[in-house]
């Protein structure tokens, strides 16, 4: 069994070690005031489309147009755009999920400084596959879900849940080290910043 062998090797390697350090945590850890405009700026900078408004269903309808939607089982029903074909995920096959033109989800946390939204597979976000296969992801953010910085987001999240951090649409830097949007994940990311009516 190599476990014991490896652990023995490590202990042997560390036998001459000196003391371990204190971790200096004097970097910014928050809480800092949230600047929603900064979030919007950072999202747009990485080619997400941002909408602000109170009527999610109307905004979602404008985005999806004549397309079809797949939605997680716990999505607030009032968000569903009327007249748009929408399948609720109850263990849909991958092919069925992929067949939808778009997906509409909520989010768990967003980070203003980096333009990041985080999904944690709660009922209003659904399985990870939902936000992966359709080419359009419409993600609704409530203002209270937005934090200023990465440390504040980490503190809010539950690592026991599957987490997906999303910063703009799928992209690559693999060709000449320049960012190009649109590879395997959704090529269109629309973020709806929900504002009280």
């Amino acid at each position, binding site marked *: 069994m*190599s476990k014991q062998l490896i652990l023995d090797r490590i202990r042997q*390697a560390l036998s001459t070690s000196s003391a371990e350090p204190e971790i200096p945590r004097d970097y910014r850890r928050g809480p800092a005031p949230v600047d929603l405009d900064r979030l919007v700026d950072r999202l747009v900078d990485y080619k997400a489309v941002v909408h602000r408004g109170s009527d999610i269903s109307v905004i979602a309808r404008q985005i999806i147009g004549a397309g079809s939607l797949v939605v997680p089982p716990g999505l607030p029903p009032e968000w569903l755009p009327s007249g748009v074909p929408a399948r609720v995920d109850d263990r849909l096959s991958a092919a069925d999920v992929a067949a939808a033109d778009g997906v509409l989800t909520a989010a768990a946390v967003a980070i203003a400084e980096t333009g990041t939204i985080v999904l944690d597979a709660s009922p209003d976000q659904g399985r990870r596959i939902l936000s992966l296969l359709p080419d359009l992801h419409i993600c609704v953010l409530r203002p209270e879900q937005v934090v200023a910085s990465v440390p504040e987001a*980490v503190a809010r999240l539950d690592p026991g849940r599957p987490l*997906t951090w999303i910063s703009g649409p799928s992209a690559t830097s693999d060709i000449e080290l320049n960012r190009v949007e649109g590879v395997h994940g959704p090529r269109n990311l629309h973020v709806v910043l929900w504002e009280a009516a």
Partner: protein
Amino acid sequence: MSTFLGMPAHAPRGVGHLRGDEPFPAAARTALANPQLRRNLEHATTTIRGKSGRVIAEVPDWQELRSAGSALKTYTMANLPRLLEQLEEKVTAAGGVVHWAADAEEANRIVTGLVRQTGEQRVIKIKSMATQEIGLNEALGEAGIDPVETDLAELIVQLGHDKPSHILVPAIHRNRSEIREIFLREMPGVDPALTDNPADLAAAARRYLRETFLSTKVAVSGANFGIAETGTLAVVESEGNGRMCLTLPETLITVMGIEKVVPAWQDLEVFLQLLPRASTGERMNPYTSMWTGVTPGDGPQNFHLVLLDNGRTAVLADEVGRSALHCIRCSACLNVCPVYERTGGHAYGSVYPGPIGAVLSPQLTGIEDNATLPYASSLCGACFDACPVKIDIPSILVHLRNQAPHPRAEKAAMAAAAYTMDRPRLYRRAQRAAKLTKLLGRRGRGLPPPLNGWVASRDLPSPPDESFRDWWRGR
């Protein structure tokens, strides 16, 4: 190399990709003769330096984050046994299975066996340094299993029957028109009207891999971080191929170097700020996936974590060199290195090129097998400044040079120089003899190797009529 059980061991020969076929200076000469490669590298590294510099300048506490990252890694190494056992316990409790691999051969055996158990003939892969290091693709191929690289750059390398040349962007040595040619030649079903527009090239990869993602039942990944406190694994990526591999298959096998463990969940707040800005020059990379064991009904229902040593314990045993294990594989040191920029990654012979490779590869294999790598640096120090976890690469290079085998003639010359320089009178006589270099002419006719390397491109200085010391005496 010690073979006693329980003693730190180097990565074995004959498997994996940590050793080159020729010494660095010879391999570099080949690379330097390729002007297209030089242009591609200069363009790409200049681009990324600019991007990275701009987003790092946005962060007012960058230096504090670097210090925290460095201290976290030092803490991790000092507590490695406890943290690895904790990680194993948490992953197991969350429904995963943990395997321990002492070296590349054992890791390949474990992964191959796990794939065989599924009965599948094909696996999809996320770009992973660890699996490249151990030569997993070759091992899978020998077992009749087809490994499909899904990262765009890895795909370019795989389709081009090429070797990776950069930690982050393995196809950095290729420009857009070369990539287009590879796709046209090697990608089944590709549109013959494909342009060299990067967006079109990315779209071609999307179409090509889509069906493979949807139909393959086993994925193999690496891991950027493994959180001991929670058993959470994290993969940082851009394209979504990682999400595909981590979400769609039934079985996920993750190969992770033992040094990638991170003590606590909270610690990600440091690394997730350092890595993207230092690496792709983004405030945050497009996608980061985190999972803890198995989530019923969501993602792979069989999860295996393979913890890999393969020489890491040998690195750990060297108190000066061990901080090479702190590397988070951002590749910032490659992008700022004037040597890397001119030779590219292939010259280093190992999957770990550039400054970090020059300190990591010889320590993983034992210095005898990569004896020229610690010298593949002018010690300019740009790598140390760029490193997000403050690895003092120049100091480790110097430390390894002290362990490297030395050419006999050099040894004799160095001994003679040290002897002379410790005897001021002898030294003064030698200084006067320096005037004799005039006889060589400024082109240094007749100089023996390696000194003739100097005069291939540089004139010798004209020796002065008198040394400073003689002038001072006569004042």
